[in-house]
């Protein structure tokens, strides 16, 4: 799946990487490379194997097959050294609920062996990063879900990592906090930090990721930049048609024919993929197809996913 020869600047390199839990194969021989300085994404539905893959990269879960190198080191033998150079934002927050917000930074930083003087400076910056300066001395428990998420993300940066792994970082954040986090992630990228993120949000993947892989049932189904993937698998424009009755949708489908390049049938709507939305609209009118609502939009990674797997991401 990886194009071309081994990239010299690959910070993470997986070949046939596999994770099995008993008989169940959660990650089924995946190949990928994450290059220095890029934002790399794992996109896929629930249970695709994103978290399992992230846990192998962060050296908290041993692989059961294949090869993996992280920061040019081997997770099987150099776990502590690798972990000292990465930041991990797990899917579920695991803040230290017995400690205050401030001590969460300091104590976590001490696990990396950093001196207190350095930590006090960084903690102050990261408090601002997480916009929690006024909650500095509060316990973690009473923070809101979004605040905890921001604290978890900020805490992962305490060791000034070269590589940051973010497993669904924006789940639970309000739209404003989400956009702010995107800004912060761009900031990290500008400083040369390599980021790996998983997400269900298509807009997030399109905004943030330089390259991404689409995962489904433990396999990588395709790989590329968001733009490449869209170009490769779908047309630039999509028309969504909704009908009052399933029977009407049925009828429209059988007569739509050549109006679009490809038609996807979902439970509640038809998706018409086209290079020329105007022409498709005219063709629909000629066939007197009259949907309840009609929405024309640009194709997204959601459409790529549908084309690749035959399923939508929400399913």
């Amino acid at each position, binding site marked *: 799946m990886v194009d071309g020869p081994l990239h010299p600047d690959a910070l993470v390199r997986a070949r046939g990487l596999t994770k099995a839990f008993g008989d169940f194969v959660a990650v089924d021989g995946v190949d990928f490379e994450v290059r220095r300085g890029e934002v790399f994404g794992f996109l896929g539905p629930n249970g695709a194997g994103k978290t399992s893959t992230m846990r192998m990269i962060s050296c*908290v879960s041993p692989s059961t097959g294949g090869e993996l190198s992280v920061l040019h080191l081997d997770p099987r033998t150099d776990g502590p050294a690798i972990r000292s150079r990465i930041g991990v934002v*797990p899917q579920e927050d695991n803040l230290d609920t017995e400690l205050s917000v401030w001590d969460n930074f300091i*104590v976590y930083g001490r*696990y*990396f*062996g950093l001196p207190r003087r350095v930590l006090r400076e960084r903690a102050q910056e990261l408090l601002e990063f997480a916009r929690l300066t006024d909650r500095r001395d509060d316990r973690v428990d009473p923070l809101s879900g979004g605040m905890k998420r921001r604290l978890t993300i900020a805490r992962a940066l305490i060791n000034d990592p070269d590589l940051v792994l973010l497993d669904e970082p924006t789940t639970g954040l309000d739209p404003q906090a989400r956009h702010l986090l995107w800004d912060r992630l761009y900031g990290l990228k500008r400083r040369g930090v390599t980021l790996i993120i998983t997400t269900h949000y298509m807009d997030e993947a399109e905004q943030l990721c330089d390259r991404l892989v689409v995962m489904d049932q433990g396999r990588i189904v395709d790989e590329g930049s968001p733009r490449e993937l869209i170009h490769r698998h779908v047309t630039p424009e999509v028309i969504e048609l909704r009908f009052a009755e399933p029977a009407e949708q049925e009828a429209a489908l059988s007569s739509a024919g050549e109006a679009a390049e490809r038609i996807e049938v979902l439970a509640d709507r038809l998706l018409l993929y086209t290079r020329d939305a105007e022409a498709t609209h005219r063709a629909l009118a000629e066939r007197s197809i009259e949907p309840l609502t009609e929405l024309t939009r640009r194709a997204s990674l959601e459409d790529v996913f549908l084309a690749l797997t035959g399923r939508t991401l929400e399913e």
Partner: protein
Amino acid sequence: MSVQDLVDHGRIAPPLDPRKRFLRLTERNVVGYVRAWPILLTGVVEPFLYLLSIGIGVGALVGDVTYAGRQVPYETFVASGMLATAAMNGAVFDTTFNFFIRLRYAKLYDAILATPLEPRDVALGEVTWALMRGTFYSAAFLVTMALFGLTESWWAVAALPATVLIGAAFASIGLAGATYLRSFLDFDFVNLAITPMFLFSATFFPLSQYPDALATVIRFTPLYQGVALCRALTTGEVGVGLLVHVAYLLAMVAVGVAVASRRIDGLLRS
């Protein structure tokens, strides 16, 4: 490329000394307890209660008992048993309960294993903390004993490291055991293990008072090692034989830490 190559090329900071990493978790517990320091004071009040209720009260009724071939006041005899028991209880209850919550609910160790620390550091770090706290409690207990006139020799000072060892042994085994607990209901098993030891480890009577068969079994139980050690030291009846008890308790530490480390690894790094 090896880690050393990368360090040499200045690509990464030198890793934490693996032998000292566990101290980071101990440090975390110290930070957490600085805020909750009144809890520590309970450890000072406890020995007064133990010694007043059982030792002094019952001692007046019982009189002397025969220990090491001589007559010893009952309260002196039983105080050393209480000392060892308190060291065990402190280690087992504080360690297993806190550890269980952190392991199963608070996800503390999941967070820690994403840092350079390893499962063994978690086990060692928690045992070390239990040991520090235990030292504080035991010191309070010993001072109280001395104030009540329940120590008969300067060897009693050596009972402090002995209780630290008892605490480490039971904390280690407690940690290993706690990895097998699935819910709070399972804590009944902890009581089931502790209570008979408390009652039947020559804590209250000399070993000679037990039937021979039972006495033989008791000689091999963990708490008996601690009781025998503390009693010998506080009464000054010291001999080379005590090293057997020391070795037994050290073995408990080694086995407990090894099992706990493996279990933590298995549970959290699936």
